[in-house]
């Protein structure tokens, strides 16, 4: 029964995609939006059904596989179309479908006047389908398929406003980096398949964990296993925007805000976290890979935090914040804090999606402008949005009793418990928390406090600002509002009910979700996910109470300190941020230029590849392919046809002569025969 719900979860968004895509011309008005939202809502209900029916099984039997058909069983490869319904996947589909429903609802108002409305919902449904496929996949092959689809959907949605060059370039960048990750994923799968001999997830894990004949030997850090896990990590890093494959995420903000909210905050970027959690039997036997993951996660956490301090585009600030928080999650699942990492995934989905939605509302009030430097004093004009920002910001900064506090600190607790050199990660985590609080509230204070800007005054007067000439927020070039560009009217939460409902529900989640996993009090997530991690070592929390108290209070204090610092710099002492910037000039340059990762990638990867391509084009391609293969073939054909054409001279007598020649020849042949 649970697996039937699993298939339904996949079927509804797919149906939504097909209906909106093929009924493109026939759907009246804005019904495509409601169809899309309805499809995802039905998927959410099916996910709830899966949850309920799964809990009806005994804990040991909560890993159910269901296969629709087997589409290849050759050469030892068992490729089935099978899904795995277990607590981990049910958790993920609940989060994904739940947040997606709300984002679809939000999009109905946000994209209302966009000419590409139907196309948007078709793509968005396709994305949700792909993500659900990814998390429900029961074997490596389907996982890779879902992974690739998600990358494709991300490309389609990032370059949704396709007449903007910046958007299309960003889409390509995201896709290319994702493909690097795909390659890592596939190669990693190969390494694992080599030893386990099966593509099915559960069978693979059994083979690895089997006490009698473990697939990778009895020790840890088998070479192939480490290689496979590191390659899986490459895939995870590309999808989750960790260093060094993170450069696509800030550029991905070119997509519409709900897209950023869904894909680049709540769901797609968490695919890497899911991957590591799902593959935990493999990672547990390759501690080297786990360490790589933890270190990269911690590094990303810090670096992204510092960059977020210096960014001026509001969406990019939130993007770097996402990157940083995903770093927490990656770090968490890499050190064995599976429940904590996934819990943070859930709470992060809530408050990050909320922040993006609120940012969308703010951008709408600014008439499409996204730069923090031009915003200010919207507190009176956008009260609801302001409250949402505050809630999201507090949750993000880890202030109790908001959800972010419980989830983030739990990760850090488990990290600290691991001991050894993980203390460095523990400290890094708290430094990151401080940075988080600072840049989050920098953003909020700059946008909502201080002197109201012109757009804010207009809104207070009751009139929503529209730019006379629509402009690209990044480059400032003028554009129009036809298909391929954003529509003429921007929506704000205060005026659109669907947006308010969505944001309100997310705000409730951001506030209250922490209550289900209060340390030492209730362990809802822990208990729920335990069957998935039955073989994981260190799953049970055994935090020493002392460390727990220290951790919680430290987290709270750091969060409050960050807020206070931000308040001082940006509210009470207006010139202070300028002064600090001037004094820490080199550091500031480093942060504003995103630690020069783009330039580094360009130098190390793009230029050599372009040079290799140019070289190949000039030598190999030109000589061999063009001249020999193509030129040769056409030359032969041309020469042959010229030779044949010569026979069509037009001389009748020539033809007659040929006839006679033919007759003579035939006669000669028969003469010889006789």
């Amino acid at each position: 029964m649970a697996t039937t719900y699993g298939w339904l979860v996949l079927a509804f968004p797919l149906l939504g995609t097909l209906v909106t895509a093929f009924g493109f011309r026939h759907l009246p008005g804005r019904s495509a939006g409601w169809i899309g939202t309805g499809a995802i809502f039905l998927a959410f209900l099916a996910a709830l059904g899966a949850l309920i029916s799964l809990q009806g099984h005994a804990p040991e039997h909560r890993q159910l596989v269901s296969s629709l058909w087997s589409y290849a069983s050759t050469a030892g490869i068992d490729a089935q179309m099978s899904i795995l319904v277990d607590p981990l996947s049910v958790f993920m589909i609940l989060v994904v479908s739940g947040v997606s429903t709300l984002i679809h609802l939000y999009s109905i108002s946000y994209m209302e006047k966009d000419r590409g409305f139907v196309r948007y919902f078709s793509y968005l449904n396709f994305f949700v389908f792909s993500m659900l496929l990814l998390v429900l996949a029961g074997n490596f092959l389907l996982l890779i398929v879902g992974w690739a689809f998600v990358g494709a959907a991300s490309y389609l949605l990032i370059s949704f406003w396709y007449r903007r060059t910046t958007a299309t370039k960003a889409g390509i960048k995201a896709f290319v980096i994702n493909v690097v990750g795909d390659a890592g994923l596939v190669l990693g799968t190969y390494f694992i398949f080599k030893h386990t001999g099966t593509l099915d997830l559960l069978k693979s894990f059994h083979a690895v964990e089997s006490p009698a004949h473990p697939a990778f030997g009895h020790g840890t850090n088998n070479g192939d296993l480490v290689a496979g896990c590191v390659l899986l990590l490459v895939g995870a890093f590309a999808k989750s925007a960790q260093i060094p494959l993170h450069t696509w995420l800030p550029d991905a903000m070119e997509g519409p805000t709900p897209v950023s909210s869904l894909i680049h905050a709540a769901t797609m970027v968490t695919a890497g976290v899911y991957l590591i959690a799902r593959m935990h039997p493999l990672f547990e036997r390759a501690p080297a890979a786990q360490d790589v993951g933890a270190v990269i996660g911690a590094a990303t956490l810090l670096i992204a935090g510092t960059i977020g301090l210096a960014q001026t585009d509001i969406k990019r600030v939130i993007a770097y914040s996402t990157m940083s928080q995903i770093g927490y999650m990656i770090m968490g699942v890499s050190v064995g804090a599976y429940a904590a990492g996934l819990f943070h995934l859930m709470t992060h989905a809530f408050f990050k999606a909320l922040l993006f939605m609120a940012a969308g509302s703010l951008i709408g009030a600014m008439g499409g402008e996204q730069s923090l430097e031009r915003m200010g004093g919207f507190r009176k004009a956008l009260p609801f949005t302001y409250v949402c920002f505050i809630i999201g910001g507090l949750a993000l900064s880890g202030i109790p009793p908001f959800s972010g506090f419980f989830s983030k600190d739990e990760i850090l607790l488990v990290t600290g418990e691991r001991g050894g050199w993980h203390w460095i990660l523990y400290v890094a985590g708290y430094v990151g928390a401080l940075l988080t609080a600072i840049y989050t509230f920098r953003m909020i204070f700059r946008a909502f406090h201080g002197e109201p800007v012109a757009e804010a005054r207009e809104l207070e007067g009751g009139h929503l600002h529209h730019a006379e000439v629509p402009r690209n927020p990044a480059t400032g070039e003028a554009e129009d509002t036809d298909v391929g560009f954003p529509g003429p009217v921007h929506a704000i939460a205060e005026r659109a009910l669907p947006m308010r409902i969505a944001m309100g529900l997310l705000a409730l989640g951001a506030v209250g979700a922490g209550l289900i996993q209060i340390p030492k009090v209730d362990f809802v997530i822990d208990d729920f996910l335990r069957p998935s991690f039955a073989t994981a070592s260190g799953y049970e929390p055994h935090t020493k109470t002392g460390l727990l108290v220290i951790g919680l209070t430290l987290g709270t204090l750091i969060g409050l300190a960050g807020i206070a610092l931000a308040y001082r710099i940006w509210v009470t002492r207006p010139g202070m941020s300028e002064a600090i910037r001037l004094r820490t000039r080199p550091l500031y340059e480093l942060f504003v230029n995103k630690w020069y990762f783009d330039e580094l990638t360009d130098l190390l990867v793009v230029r050599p590849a372009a040079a290799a391509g140019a070289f190949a084009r000039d030598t190999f391609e030109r000589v061999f392919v063009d001249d020999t293969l193509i030129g040769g073939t056409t030359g032969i054909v041309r020469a042959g046809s010229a030779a044949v054409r010569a026979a069509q001279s037009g001389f009748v007598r020539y033809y007659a002569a040929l006839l006679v020649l033919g007759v003579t020849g035939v006669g000669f042949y028969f003469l010889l025969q006789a």
Partner: protein
Amino acid sequence: MSIAWYLAVSAIVFSLGALGVMTRRNPLVVLLCLELMLNGGNLALIAFSRMWGNGDGQILAIVVMTVAACEVCIGLGMIVAIYRRQLPIDVDELRELQG
């Protein structure tokens, strides 16, 4: 005379006709040479008919004559049409259908 002589004459006439077709430039003469070839064939047919003793060859010879007549009709019609258009009456000149 045995049949072989007639066949020899037939072969000579046929080859002469073929030579003429390949060599002459005036389409009228080409058609005439074509007639020669047909006649050579006719002679061979009649000779063989005599050899076998049944009339099949003669019937075929009559049919060949019929066909020759039709073909002459059409051929001459074409030459007249060409002449009417003031085109040169020369097979070497009339070669628009070349490739």
